[in-house]
């Protein structure tokens, strides 16, 4: 029984009977301790330095703020050369980010691959805009933007998509108020193999 306890996590995948034989005690390959004692503790500071993700509930959004107009100015100098003055992109290499055409509004992407998927018609969470820009953009200088700049760029892109007034300023609280047109269109995977093609 001690053996089972020390391998308790394996219960999630193996039936308990198999467990004793397969995972613990005198088996070929040696013993399985509760922990191997390998690795070192990660400090709070070092985790904070890399824990940059923002969740759909706003968890991880930093302090700071930025206005639509500041965002437009930063966009013109740091983003427009690849994504176009109006966020129209230069597909396929540089994605479009702005656009809410009528076909897109009906979420008709399965019918027509040519409808550009934009923040305005395909992104389900405003938090993703912040998270992605902070992670990855501008493409040739990732990680170079301040949090205020990322808020401003997020505000500008949401506003360009008609999701925020041109006079708005975005911070962690107001970002969570933005209603994304694509929210509610996403469904979990229902493919299970077997006889049904989905």
């Amino acid at each position, binding site marked *: 029984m001690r053996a089972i306890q020390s391998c308790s996590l394996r219960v999630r995948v193996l039936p308990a009977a198999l467990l004793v034989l397969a995972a613990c005690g005198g088996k070929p390959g040696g013993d399985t301790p509760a922990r191997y004692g390998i690795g070192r503790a990660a400090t709070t500071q070092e985790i904070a330095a890399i824990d940059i993700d923002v969740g759909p509930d706003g968890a991880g959004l930093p302090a700071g703020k930025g206005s639509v107009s500041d965002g437009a100015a930063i966009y013109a100098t740091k983003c427009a050369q690849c994504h176009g003055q109006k966020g129209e992109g230069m597909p396929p290499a540089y994605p479009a980010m702005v656009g809410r055409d009528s076909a897109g509004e009906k979420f008709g992407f399965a019918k027509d*691959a040519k409808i550009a998927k934009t923040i305005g018609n395909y992104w389900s969470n405003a938090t993703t805009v912040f998270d992605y820009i902070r992670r990855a953009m501008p493409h*040739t200088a990732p990680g170079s933007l301040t949090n205020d700049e990322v808020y401003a760029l997020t505000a500008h892109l949401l506003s360009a998509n008609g999701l925020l007034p041109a006079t708005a300023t975005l911070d962690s609280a107001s970002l969570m108020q933005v209603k994304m047109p694509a929210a509610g269109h996403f469904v979990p995977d229902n493919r299970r193999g077997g*006889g049904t093609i989905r």
Partner: protein
Amino acid sequence: MTDPESKEGAALTRRDLLRGAAVAGGAALVGIPAVARSQAQALAPVVPPLVPQVLPPIPADATKLLGTPTSPVGTRSRFVTASRAPTGEVTGTSFTPLQDLTGTITPSDLHFERHHAGIPLLDPARHTLTVHGMVDRPMAFTVDELRRFPQVTRVHFVECSGNGRGAYRDPKPELTPQKIAGMTSNSEWTGVRLADIMKEVGAQASAQWFLAEGGDACLLARSIPMPKAFDDALVVWAQNGEPLRPEQGYPMRLLLPGYEGNANVKWLRRLEVGMRPWMTRWETAKYTDPLPGGIARQFSFEMDAKSVITSPCAPRTITKGWNPISGLAWSGRGRITKVEVSTDNGKSWREAELQGPSLPKAHVRFAYMWEWKGSEQVLLSRATDETGYVQPTRAKLIEVRGKGTDYHFNPIYGWRIATDGAITFHGES
């Protein structure tokens, strides 16, 4: 440079990058040393490019001439030209030349590539995997430390879920196996069970998801359901007996058998255990499947069963007489149990031989001996996996998913043999 299959790959080349940087007028690059703009650039040798090597003449009789000596690292025969294509893409793809390979293991240097921000140059002495969030003991591991956990070696394919997009949307006669399916590769991977790492850090039983993040220039991040960590997920550092290739995630990557390639995060630097998915750009704006009825499928990880004939194939020709019809089959849900071949465009099907063991979530090679007598024929293959799933026709997929769907393309494809032995792609099953 833009390959039809790599719309998703978006074909951003190094030249484009320089262009972007140039147009930026330096504005985006202030404070960034010129060499840091691209790590590939930083790596470029300072010496002028080598003059083309003069190859020795091919001897009339090699048994009469002493051969060449041993060398530190082998190279392919000069007669072998298998190569990935397209190349030079920082944000984009290169495809495996499936038609040039035999057996089931993809040579590491021909494994397809898909990068969202180029290949990072990571020093294994400094790179760590940090695991935190809903864990009792947040911890960091170097690759050397990971190697001290129980090691497992498994054969699995990795397939980009965008594999085959070009052929699905726009089947053209000149397409080759490389172009219709070259974003799948199969390797022997060595690493540690993610379950062992989760146990070491004391992942909390109530946790539902974890975030996996890479150490590349876009910090690519995906949310993965926690049960996968305790099922068959691995953190691997080796591929086909040697350390991972840089383009496959050196010094370590996540390996989620059967899951779409993008979720197998390369250059793995961080795992955060939590309660809900993070809704990263790669699981919302990308890697979701638009479907009829104004919806899109999300977190569609498992790759559906698929097969492709790699010989005969376009753009080759075939000679009359006996020929093997040979190809690869795989499923993200387990073992391939059957591959059938049709030589009459799907009117009748014959079972092919599965060569070697059919391993779960791995490529298996199939073969069927066939005598070509010179008539026009269409060769097709169709895989069945252990769940009973049978690879569908393209018409069926278009019916249920729409022509604009964006990922997970696994229709039955084939090759049309003309009376003169010329071969073209047949994509309209």
